[in-house]
């Protein structure tokens, strides 16, 4: 599966085991183990609070992407379209709702029904609709955790924003207490938040490793391996142990000067979520040119630890609020994303920007033409924009994307050859 034999072997095996156990827990809950579950969303979420009540977090987005990776999404998408969902609606939602309404059985496990539908509205407006719809199809209580968008010049939430979110978190605690019949164990929450803080620290150190040349892993395609446990299992001991292993392994590779490809010829930043149904095909298009992603915006939807955020056990509620409000990609405005990418290009020493524009996720994609304009015209950064989708296999036009990728790297090579000649 990997270019280098043994590449990231232990980390991958461990991840597979952990995610297998996670889905076994979901299946057990679906089959009546008695564990209650909370549906929630990936972007900047309060999973620490949910775990403090021993609620099992279920992420419809993660389920949808697993369906896409396993090439099982299309029939569910079509089921949703038969219900009236449009060809132009987000296919994550359609795959999830198609699956939800048709038995919730997937090749990786059975998805339990929720006891709580927790819409952590962090930027993505589709989230609101997705969970509004699930709440129509299921009698579980629904809670909109409304996170004010970052909208001021300072790029920081106001004191009122923080208060508003902390108070809603308190309301959520009361709701979880009703659902589980348990009082919130503040000491337990503190420990979970501490574990999240330590995990974030390791994730941040891992991300700094790709500043080295060669980069020890691909910050787009390989980050995915780390993101699944970061989201589904954050705040647990096993998640922290996994990140310790991953960091040790990746640090050793960095020290040894080993990267994901035999030779790192181009360092790129990739913006936008991956085409899950064709992940391997897409990756190969870049590997062929020796292009390695040294940073990616997608790997920050769950949190922006690499720029300094840590959960703080001394202020659990405030730090959960701060994570949701400020320290994740999706609740930040589009120009803050330009700035994030600009920093990646500079501080991670990248040669080019690749924008993968996906139809389903307009939060990511709407306006990426302007982003390209900014990076090419104002900053002079070679920028490639290709279009497909995160979930719907009908939108992946392999030949067209391959042609564009090839033309882009050919031109970069040509520029490099010309530059080498003139300096000779």
């Amino acid at each position: 599966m990997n270019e280098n034999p043994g590449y990231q072997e232990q980390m991958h095996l461990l991840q597979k085991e952990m995610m297998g156990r996670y889905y076994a827990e979901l299946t057990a809950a679906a089959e009546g183990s008695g564990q209650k579950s909370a549906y929630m969303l990936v972007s900047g979420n309060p999973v620490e609070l949910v775990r403090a009540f021993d609620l099992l977090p279920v992420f419809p987005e993660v389920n949808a992407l697993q369906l896409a990776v396993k090439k099982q999404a299309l029939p569910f998408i079509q089921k949703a379209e038969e219900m009236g969902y449009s060809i132009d609606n987000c296919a994550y939602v359609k795959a999830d709702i198609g699956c939800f309404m048709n038995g919730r059985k997937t090749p990786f496990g059975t998805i339990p029904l929720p006891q709580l539908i927790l819409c952590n509205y962090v930027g993505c407006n589709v989230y609101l609709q997705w969970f509004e719809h699930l709440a129509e199809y299921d009698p579980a209580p629904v809670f909109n955790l409304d996170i004010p968008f970052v909208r001021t010049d300072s790029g920081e939430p106001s004191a009122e924003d923080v208060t508003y979110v902390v108070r809603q978190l308190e309301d959520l605690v009361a709701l979880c207490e009703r659902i589980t019949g348990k009082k919130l164990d503040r000491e337990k929450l503190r420990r979970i938040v501490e574990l999240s803080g330590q995990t974030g620290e390791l994730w941040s150190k891992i991300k700094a490793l790709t500043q080295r040349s060669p980069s020890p892993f691909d910050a787009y395609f390989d980050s995915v391996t780390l993101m699944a446990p970061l989201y589904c299992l954050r705040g647990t001991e096993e998640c922290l142990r996994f990140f310790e292993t991953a960091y040790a392994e990746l640090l050793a590779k960095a020290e040894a000067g080993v990267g994901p490809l035999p030779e790192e010829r181009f360092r790129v930043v990739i913006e936008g979520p991956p085409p899950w149904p064709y992940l391997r095909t897409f990756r190969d298009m870049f590997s062929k040119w020796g292009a390695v992603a040294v940073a990616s915006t997608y790997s920050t939807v769950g949190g922006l630890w690499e720029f300094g955020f840590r959960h703080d056990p001394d202020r659990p509620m405030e730090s959960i609020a701060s994570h949701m409000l400020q320290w994740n990609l999706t609740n930040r405005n589009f120009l803050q994303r330009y700035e994030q990418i600009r920093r990646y290009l500079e501080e991670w020493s990248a040669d080019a920007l690749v924008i993968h524009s996906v139809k389903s996720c307009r939060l990511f994609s709407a306006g990426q033409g302007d982003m390209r304009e900014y990076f090419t015209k104002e900053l002079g950064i070679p920028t490639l924009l290709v279009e497909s989708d995160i979930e719907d296999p009908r939108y992946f036009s392999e030949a067209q994307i391959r042609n564009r990728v090839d033309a882009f790297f050919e031109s970069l090579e040509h520029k490099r050859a010309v530059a080498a000649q003139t300096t000779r």
Partner: protein
Amino acid sequence: MTEAVQESIERCRELLAAPFGDVAGALKRDHPGSKLVGCFPVYTPAELIHASGALPIGVIGGGNQIEIAHADSRFQSFVCSIVKSSLELGLTQRLEALDAMLFHSICDPARNLASVFKRNFPGIPVEYLHLPQNMGPRADGYLVAEYRRLLLALGELTGTPATDASLKRSIALYNRARGLVRALYRLRSEAPEKLSAADCYVLVRAGTLISVEEHVAMLEAALPALDARPARPKDRIRVVLEGSFCEQPPLELLERIEEAGCYLVDDDFLLGWRWFRSDVRPHGDPLRAMAGAYLHGSVYSGVKHDLREPKAKHLLDKVRELRADAVLILAAKFCEPALFDYALYRRALDAAAIPHLFLEFEEKMWIFDHVRTEVETFVESMLFA
């Protein structure tokens, strides 16, 4: 119909047909010293702008007048037209009369558009409102703070910050304007033969392009004249239209739909400009009154996710109250909120055995034959099946 009201309607049609830059420029010339604040759909607390001594003006896309030549390289093919045409207005120097622009959290493309505006038009300060999506007990205090933040920015822009007194005056004025619009819609539902959907539309739309004082005067004159119109009801079905709360359909489309055998007895066009079911409380703390009205007295909408009651229930209630025969979902192409809502509406309408038809439109469409045929077929199936 009296000549005067026909003239008003014609004037509104001309306003709507005129280039946006000219209309905005004229509004500014007629109110020397006033700042112009562009309002992107859906809802704008126009009272706050007015009370700060500025003029709100609706920036609601380019309609079918402008060609999108630049904005389509910034926003992809799968993004709705209003986002691109509003940007195109700016890229072609048609927004130069604006002193600020206001957006709020309605959908992801509009959200990113606010940033793209900020980068491309540094001369137009952009304000972005986050209106609450959790209608629980915490929203009230938050929304008051958010309005206060907006007032601060508006005060800096105009140099004449709003006071409690100016806010109360503005609330009273907009209450009057919205009350008149509600009266127009009442007339339409009670005697749709007296006021076509297209005429009603232009009368309301004009309110987004002229001062509220002028709009009130115009509607006060028009209403009794419209009511007094002798008109004979036609054999048409009564239809509630839903789904056009942001991008606006072309006038010709509304005309074709009605000609195909419908009376549109209600719709959600320009929804944000008629956002409240009744008056905003005119006394007490004005910002609390505005926030309270948003949380407890506003209409349902595809961009407000109020989980206290299912959205579809509101639609069904409306159908029953207005004794409508059917529902027409008219969604803008690529409008995710409207397209998502359709799935819920369809389910509820089917369960209640209310006939419904789904159509998509684009503001810049110019061929209407197929829509007319579809509506005709739908109407015939109801009348003769």
